[in-house]
Structures are given as C-alpha cells and as structure tokens.
C-alpha cells in the first residue's frame, strides 16, 4: 500500500488542478471490486479520496467485513456525519462513514443515502464503539435514527428541543428568541 500512501501524500501537499476521476483505480478500489463486487455500488474517486456508495441494508455487514479483512483492516472510525441535501431532493440525507486503517494508513469513505420519510439505518456501534457518540450527534442535529443504538438521545441540543437543527428547513435563528420565562 505504499504507492497508495505516496499518492495520497502528494495529493494533500500539492493538489492537482482538476479533481481526478482517474482511469486507473487505486489499489484500494481494485481490492474492493475484486473481493466484493456486488457491494461497491458506485465508487467515486475524487480529490485523492475514495468514496463508496453502499446500500442501506448492507452497511453493518460491510463495516464488519472492512474492519477485519486482511487487505483493508479499517479499524478506526474517524468520523460519522450526515449531510442534508435539501427538502426537495430525493434521497434527502446521506450518512458518511470515514474510515482509517491504523496498520495500513489508508482512508475510505462509505456513503449511505436515505430518504426523507424513512431515515433509518443500522447502528455500527457494535463494530466501532466510537460510533456511539457520533450517531447520537447525527440523530440530534439531523434526525437520522440509528436502529439498535444502545442510548439514542440528544447530546448537544437541550433535551426538550423540538426539531433538528442542522436540517436545511430549520431556520438559522431558530423559531423564537430566548426568554427566561
């Protein structure tokens, strides 16, 4: 994987002038395509990063596999965040899992697309325990419900807050100014 490392290192220091949709896929993508071709629904390689769009039902399987498979070994979940594409878009939400491998030093992004009326996805707390707080934050700010989470409640906003603050249809200044009474 040293070529991968050099690739990414170079991209970080002096970025290419155009996002690379390279014809020759990186070794990581090649290994993915070789070993599990039906999962890698869509693989995007841009800005020196690999994004894989995975269907919602397989996310737990994929994460467990990626954590232990010898060619991947993604044992570190760097980040779990969600993005809202806007209330008119279908699918509305995307949940991104940023993975990092402690041993092989490569990175990967998994993306799950969710609809507005059914924002449920399986929790990956069983795979990486750090997902616990990340999923709580995603639930709090975006309203995405993680099935099977041991303790899904609000973490940043007050417990009696109504609404999910980071959605595009939530106004910036909130619904009413603060008053003590």
């Amino acid at each position, binding site marked *: 994987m040293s070529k991968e*490392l050099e690739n*990414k*290192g170079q*991209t*970080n*220091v*002096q*970025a*290419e*002038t*155009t*996002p690379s949709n390279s014809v020759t896929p990186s070794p990581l993508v090649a290994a993915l395509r070789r070993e599990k071709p039906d999962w890698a629904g869509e693989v995007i390689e*841009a*800005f*020196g*990063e690999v*994004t894989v769009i995975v269907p919602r039902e397989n996310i737990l399987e994929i994460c467990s596999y990626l954590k232990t498979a010898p060619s991947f070994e993604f*044992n*570190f*979940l*760097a*980040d779990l*965040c969600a*993005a*809202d*594409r806007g209330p008119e878009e279908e699918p509305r939400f995307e949940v*991104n899992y*940023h993975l*990092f491998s*402690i041993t092989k*030093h490569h*990175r990967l*992004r998994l993306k799950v697309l969710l609809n507005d009326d059914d924002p449920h996805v399986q929790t990956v707390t069983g795979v*990486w*325990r*750090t997902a*616990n*707080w*990340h999923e709580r*934050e995603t639930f709090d*700010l975006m309203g995405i419900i993680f099935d099977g989470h041991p303790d899904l409640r*609000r*973490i*940043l*906003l*007050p417990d009696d807050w109504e609404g999910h*603050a*980071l959605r595009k249809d*939530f106004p*910036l200044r909130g619904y009413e100014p603060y008053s003590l009474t």
Partner: protein
Amino acid sequence: MSATLPPQFEVIDRPLDTQMTISMGPQHPSTHGVLRLELILDGEMVVKSTPDIGYLHTGMEKLFEYKKYQQGIVITDRMDYLNPLGNNLAYVMAAEKLLGLEIPERAQTIRVLMCELQRIASHLVWLGTHALDIGAMTVFFYAFREREKILNLIEAASGGRLTPSYFRIGGLMMDLPSGFERRVQQFLNDFPEALEEFHTLLSGNRIFQKRTQGIGYISAEDAIDWGLAGPCLRGSGVNIDIRRTNPYTGYEKYDFEVCVEQDGDVWARYMVRMREMKESHKIVVQALSRLQPGPVKADAPKVVLPDREAMKTHMDALIHHFLIVAEGFDVPEGEVYHPIEASKGELGVYMKSNGGPKPARVHFRGPSFVNLSALPQMAEGCMVADIVAIIGSLDIVLGEIDR
C-alpha cells in the same frame, strides 16, 4: 475474643444503599469548561460516569452554510480556542483541496511554523490547567508566562492573540512582519530552559507521580475502538501521527520524532505531551532555517485577494477584490475529508460543496469530542479526585466538543 455482641447491638444484614448520584456540574473549576458529569459514586469511588455535553453548543456547523468560504475562517477560530491556527489550517486546506490550489513554498513553511508554535501554546495551557487541578499552582503561572511570549508572536503576525484567523484559502493573510525571525529565535533560545523547569517541578515530584501513574488506564485496542487520536492514542502505545501517515503542508520534509509511550495512563499522556513540546521546538527551528523569500499567496486571482498596492493601482485587481469580497468564489462540486494533527488529536474537516460560494455542509470531527467519549471507560473504579486528573489528561476543550 469471642465475637458475641452485646444484646443492644443488632447485626444489620441487608446491604446499605451507599450509592449516590452527583452532578459534577457545568460550572466547576476543574472540568475545563462547561462540562457536566453525572457520577454515580459509592463513597469516594466512581461506579459510573456519564458526560453530559451541549452547554456550549454554538451551532457553528449551521453557520458555515450561511457564510462564504472566506468568512467561515473566522468562525473556526472559536472552535478549539486553544489551537485556533490548527482549526484555520484544517478548514483552509479542505477548501484548497476542493479548489485544487497549489500553495507556495514560503506559505507552507510559515504554516508549519505557526502551527507548531500554536501546538506548544496549546500544550502549555494543558500543562498549566492540568497541574493546577492536581494542585501544583506554580506551574500554571510559569506555563502562562511562556505562553504570553507565543501569543505576542502570533499577535505580531496576525493581529489577534487568541483568534488570529491567519490562514486564508490560498496562503496566508499577509507576510510575516520584519524582525519576526529574530523574535522567534529569541523564544526558541528561552524555551528549552522553561521546559526543563516544568520537568523539575512535576516529573520528579512524587506527589504528581502518585496522582497520575496507574490512573485512567486504557489499552491500545480500546483506544483504537473508541476512536482516540493524538497524545491519548500515542500514550497507549499506538504509533499514529497524521503528520506522518497523511502528511500535509510539507510535513514530510521535517525531521521529528513521534512520541509514543506504552503505559496508557495519565502519566504516559503527560510524558507524550511534554516530549511533543520538545519535538515542536525542533520543528520550529527547522522551519525557521528554511524560510526563503517568496510569495505567500497562491497564484489564483479569482480566489485569493490581491495585494493592497495592486488593488489600488490596477483595475483588474480591484475588480477581483470586489468580486471575491462581495460575491465569493465558486468552489467546484464535491466533498473532501481533510484530517490534520491538531494538538489534541485528529481534527478532520468534512466539506461538501454544491458548486456555489457557500459550502453545503461543513463538519468538524473534533478530537476532544471523541476523546471525551472514552472517559467512562477510563474512569471506572477510580476516585473522584482521579476524575479530575483524567479529564486533565484528555485535554478537552468544550468549544470543540460542542461546536
């Protein structure tokens, strides 16, 4: 002697209810900010601890979506307010990655220099407050005295002590002032002595050792599983430093050692950070020697503000300046995740752009957020006074946790 009690004493056979729930509230001198811990105590021993955060939630991620890319740099200062240049760097580099800009050599060297100075400053605050919580008040004053020197340097370069916003998309705000190298050299000459002073005060101190050794242990597998990064991970024996694994801003050209300790307790994390300060000192020495005259902004007139002189004399520079400030520049569509090694761990920025002048989503992966989630595991079975030591060793900043 026979164990027959006099008749008026009866043996109570049911267990007494000795557990109490205490809120180590948001206003507390030792929680390093507005953090609330719900502790379930059995006497002095902590049975379970649950952090309750959100008392400093500022809605920064929502604010980013309403501000142009350049305006967002100011907000990043207030996130991890002990390491504002690091936050700036992460945000700016993510935007540069999307735009595909090439940063000139001098700007990269200055970025490394300022970031490492900021790392020393952040570790000094950690040292001062950690020692203050454990009881060594002198170290607080000594550390802040050293920190004043660094803040003066940062203020000379950028105008702000705590919220510099020195980096811009495409380079720096402006070049270093004259005489800056001499002042940095002066600081570099004085700093090793100060570091020796801290070691004299703390590292050989039996009280400090007793309060930190064996406390807050976390193993390497658990640390990786809980997502710890930075000194917390390196204190448990895992050799990961983003400056080595995914280098940025030219870090691969510098010669420094990644400090790793094996014990995994508060003492190990303390030693990692002390050694890191020394390594940062080394990097600053190297960066200072590499400074060559040159441009500090990338050659991209649509993105980078022109020089004031050029703006006042040339028409196209004026037009560019006006357009960049009034309308912003369009960033190509896409998403990036850019991690840097902040003083607390892996600070990652996830930036998603829809092609307009404002980002569609900016998410900061704050290292303190993840480090704090491992606190319940570290604090099992320790005493209340040890919780204070553990929080100090995690080096949390609530601005980053609550964003």
